[in-house]
């Protein structure tokens, strides 16, 4: 009897289980279809909702797609971001597969093969000019147009913006934003990354550590709390890449932007907030002719080249002059000056560079600045009266009134050329040294063999060991002494503005370590093995906040993160693209990265804020999905 009872209980329980499941399943089926399209948190305020509702209009009922497209989102490493974006897109109703590629090469292999629907990528406006922020990726002739955007109207707008002055171009770039993001949806904005630098305040003077928005970290202004340490204590820093591209400004890439920026001087620089300045540059000042296509730079005479002798940096005694600047810019413009020149297209707009010697004509050229002549503008910045101009750099003598002027003209009015001249690739090289080292390549480019021929600046010249023959001649505040797999040593250039208190470098040695792993670099910072560290992961700030030794400086960078579309797949449909745009809740992204990300609209936002925002809105997502469903009959 007892057995029978227990069996009965068991069967009863199974029966209950099944009835329960059955009933629940009914409820489930009827509710899921609507629920899935609404994200858990609705950030849009009530007014925004009202707006979007009116934008949608009360025309006809929304069609719910029968089947949502399955999309593949390609990532380059970024595991944390993949978790956030996958979640947002799934909450919007997409079926999302994530494809995380371990490195740049495999990421772009997939992009080139078109094996993706969305790709999480970024664009950095390294020179802070709005033209640079859109041209390379979104112009049909752009050198980095990997997603094959070809829109004549957008090209036209970009060209128009390029030819205008800052006062004029605001409305043009605003129009570009509206068109490329709002109307055509050529990118789904995700965020702007914060650029942070953490420094060891017990050693470094926090004031001297700058965190510029676009330009590379500036070395010559660094100071220790204890000035007596400048000679003895090397400044320690780290980066990931240990395999360096050449110390030749026009061949710089991510591995050497900072090195080339600090080892070669330019005619102008960018301030921390991306304005043009002549601080720490080769020019006292510049003047723009009223045509908008002529630029005059009045050069300093207290910058000398340095070279390495017996393992230390010495002043060569050779002045950095107008001839070198003109040579370097001509070289930057020439596609064939080095193999695979990556930057020449930036200089397309330049018509001619020359050493300008005609003082009289200078006085008669009107400048853009309030009725003054170019001469007047330049004279205001000069330390003494400009008595004569010379084309021989060794003859320059500012205190005696002998100056040098560089004149650059553009093919059409292009004020943003100044930003290009502030870019790393415009660094001034020693004409003699480069022509000497590259003589064979210059005379016969076809004979160049990448395996055996080392061109100027390549790391093989200054890697420790048998092949060591450091023939670098640098115009900037520092010069590389030697390098191995673990570090690269730099020393200050004794001939760099020696009497200038602010910009003469003080710290003798810079020891740049190569640390591949972010966690290791962070530990090194805390252990005092490095003095500053860039881009600490969001989770680490809590740890540092409790430690008064460390100080973090923060600024929104020009790194624009966005989802690029594959226009050959489902995203050839503009409504689907817009649905993705509105599904990406940038406020949640910022939240997930603990405030280390800032909402954005277009790549221009960080350079020229027009105040446009793209609010995530489930209603808009539903609307665009419905439009997509109607169009494709899905």
């Amino acid at each position, binding site marked *: 009897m007892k057995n029978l009872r227990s*069996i009965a209980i*068991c069967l009863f329980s199974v029966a209950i289980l099944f009835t329960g499941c059955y009933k629940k399943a009914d409820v489930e089926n009827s509710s899921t279809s609507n629920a899935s399209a609404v994200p858990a948190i609705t950030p849009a305020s009530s007014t925004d909702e009202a707006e979007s509702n009116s934008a949608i209009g009360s025309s006809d009922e929304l069609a719910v797609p029968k089947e949502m497209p399955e999309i593949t989102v390609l990532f380059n490493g970024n595991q944390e971001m993949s978790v956030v974006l996958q*979640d947002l897109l799934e909450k919007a109703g997409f079926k999302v597969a994530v494809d995380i590629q371990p490195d740049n090469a495999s990421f772009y292999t997939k992009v080139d093969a078109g094996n993706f629907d969305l790709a999480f990528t970024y664009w950095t406006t390294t020179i802070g000019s709005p033209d640079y922020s859109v041209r390379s990726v979104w112009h049909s002739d752009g050198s980095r147009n990997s997603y094959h955007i070809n829109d004549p109207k957008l090209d036209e707008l970009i060209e128009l913006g390029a030819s205008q002055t800052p006062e004029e171009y605001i409305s043009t770039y605003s129009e570009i934003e509206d068109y490329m993001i709002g109307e055509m949806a050529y990118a789904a904005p995700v965020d702007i990354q914060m650029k942070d630098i953490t420094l060891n305040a017990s050693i470094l003077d926090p004031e001297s550590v700058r965190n510029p928005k676009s330009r590379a970290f500036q070395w010559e202004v660094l100071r220790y709390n204890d000035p007596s340490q400048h000679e003895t204590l090397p400044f320690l820093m780290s980066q990931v890449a240990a395999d360096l591209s050449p110390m030749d400004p026009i061949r710089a890439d991510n591995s050497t932007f900072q090195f080339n920026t600090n080892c070669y001087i330019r005619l102008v620089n960018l301030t921390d907030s991306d304005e043009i300045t002549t601080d720490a540059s080769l020019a006292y000042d510049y003047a723009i002719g009223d045509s908008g296509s002529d630029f005059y730079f009045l050069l300093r005479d207290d910058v000398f080249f340095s070279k390495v002798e017996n393992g230390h940096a010495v002043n060569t005694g050779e002045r950095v002059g107008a001839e070198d600047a003109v040579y370097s810019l001509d070289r930057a413009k020439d596609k064939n000056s080095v193999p695979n020149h990556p930057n020449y297209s930036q200089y397309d707009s330049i018509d001619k560079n020359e050493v300008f010697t005609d003082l009289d004509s200078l006085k008669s050229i009107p400048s853009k600045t309030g009725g003054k002549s170019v001469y007047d503008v330049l004279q205001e910045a000069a330390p003494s009266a400009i008595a004569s101009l010379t084309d021989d750099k060794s003859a320059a003598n500012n205190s005696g009134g002998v100056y040098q002027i560089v004149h650059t003209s553009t093919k059409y009015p292009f004020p943003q050329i100044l930003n290009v001249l502030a870019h790393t690739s415009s660094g001034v090289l020693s004409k003699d040294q480069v022509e000497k080292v590259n003589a064979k390549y210059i005379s016969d480019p076809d004979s160049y063999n990448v395996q055996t021929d080392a061109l100027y600046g390549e790391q093989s010249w200054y890697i420790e060991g048998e092949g060591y023959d450091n023939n670098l001649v640098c115009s900037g505040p520092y010069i590389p002494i030697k390098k191995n797999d673990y570090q690269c040593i730099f020393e200050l250039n004794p001939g760099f503005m020696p009497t200038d208190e602010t910009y003469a470098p003080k710290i003798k040695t810079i020891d740049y370590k190569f640390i591949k792993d972010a966690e290791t670099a962070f530990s090194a910072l805390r252990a005092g093995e490095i003095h500053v560290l860039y881009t600490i992961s969001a989770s680490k700030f809590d740890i540092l906040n409790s430690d008064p030794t460390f100080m973090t400086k923060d600024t929104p960078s020009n790194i624009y993160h966005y989802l690029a579309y594959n226009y050959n797949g489902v995203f050839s449909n503009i409504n689907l693209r817009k649905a993705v745009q509105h599904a990406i809740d940038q406020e949640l992204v910022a939240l997930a990265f603990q405030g280390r990300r800032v909402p954005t609209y277009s790549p221009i936002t960080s350079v020229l804020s027009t105040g446009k925002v793209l609010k995530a809105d489930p209603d808009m997502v539903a609307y665009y999905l419905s439009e997509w469903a109607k169009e494709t009959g899905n």
Partner: protein
Amino acid sequence: MNGKNQFLKKAQARKLQRFPELNALNISWAASFSLALLLLFNSFDWELKGFIVDSPAFYVAALYLIPAGLSLSLSICSARGIARSGAIPVFVRRISLLLAPFALAGNIFAAIAGFTTVKKSKSLEYQLLTCAFLNNLMVIMTASLNFFKDSLPDYFAPAISALAFTLAFYLAAMAALHRAQKTGGYKRLYPIAFASILTAATGNIFALILGLAIISKIRSSDSNRTIEWIETLRRIFRNYMAVLGMLVIIFLVTLSVCSIFTFDYAIATTNDYSNMLKPPSLAFPFGTDDVGRCVFTRIVFGARISLFIGIIATAIPLIAGGFLGSVAGNYGSKLDNGIMRILDIFHAVPSTLLTIAIVAAFGASTFNLIIALSLSNIPVYARTMRAQVMVVSNNEFVEAARACGRRKYEILFKHIIPNSLAPMIVRASVSIGIAVLSTSSLSYLGLGVEPKIPEWGNILKVGSKYLETNPYLAVYPGIFIIILVLAFNFLGDGLRDALDPKMK
């Protein structure tokens, strides 16, 4: 005099060893006491220099001290009883039942001690039923933590009630078993066996084994004849640690099956930005991670993936390696040489390197991961099987079969392979643990399953970023990986002992 004392001591120790009850009681008080200490340590406020009396940890600690004291006194009493009369006193057995309810406080050691001590002659069926009962009880208790969440999963109520009914059934079955053993009506247990197999749908493998054991016992005509696999099982159940390992594994299996109904997968995978990096609480027992997912729920669902990958990635090389090894061992000469040299090439590549290479080449996905883990393990199994086959094929019964004119492949599959399986099973049980560990470490390196999926290595990877600020994010998945691997190792040890002919 001294020598005699030592001899007596040893004799006494041997006597005590014969009683598994004593072992269970000792483990019970030691484990309960250490857990109580751990919880007390947790409820200690270092700033106020005092215990936080109203914290849950403090109450649970007090709850653990009771069975600790009880088990300790029972253990002393029974040791004395054994010394005096050679048996555990009856009152100890009666009182020990008081230990069983502490299972409700999560004290599984006390419960095992209680169930072990209360009954003098423990049949295999009784032990299986106890384990099945404890197993489902733990699953219910784990699922009950969901009551503290804002919402319950859709099928929660029916699933929990079904599980509760299985508990009732196991208790009833225990009573029925007791009667059947007393009155001898073993054949009447047929319905119990079938019902028990039915309850194995929850993932409770103990119930499945119980059902099969009862059925095969009833069906075997001669009650005096022993059934080989049941004997093996009996030997496993003599080993406390092996049982504990089995309990952990089957608990995780049951949890994985039942979590379909008792847990909400969305909580494990959907980001909730209003609950980021929350410390452990009743609603989030293991805290929440950096995008607000409940780590506890993620670990529960992670068990399914880890176990699935572990078992499949062991089954494939077990079958493939076993087949290749037995063919090589049986047919010998050129075939042997060919197969083994090819496998040697595989074996020469470090297995982790091979796995990473395969995953890196074909992309990170669960399927590729399983293939990668399997491939690198085939040679190991093949070697074991080949050696075993060569040993077994020299036995007389193989010769006899050959003399009877059996074909070679028939001898291989009917006689040699079944007798060569023991070391393979042991190796497999241990290597499941290793496979789980490899999956976790590959996920940790970013080569395993995609980051959204709640695999234990993935959870650990997220936690490792917060080791200094939110250590619990890494500690809990770490503990679970350790427990699972240990459980498989204990079970493997127990299996090896149980299958060892010398131990029979």
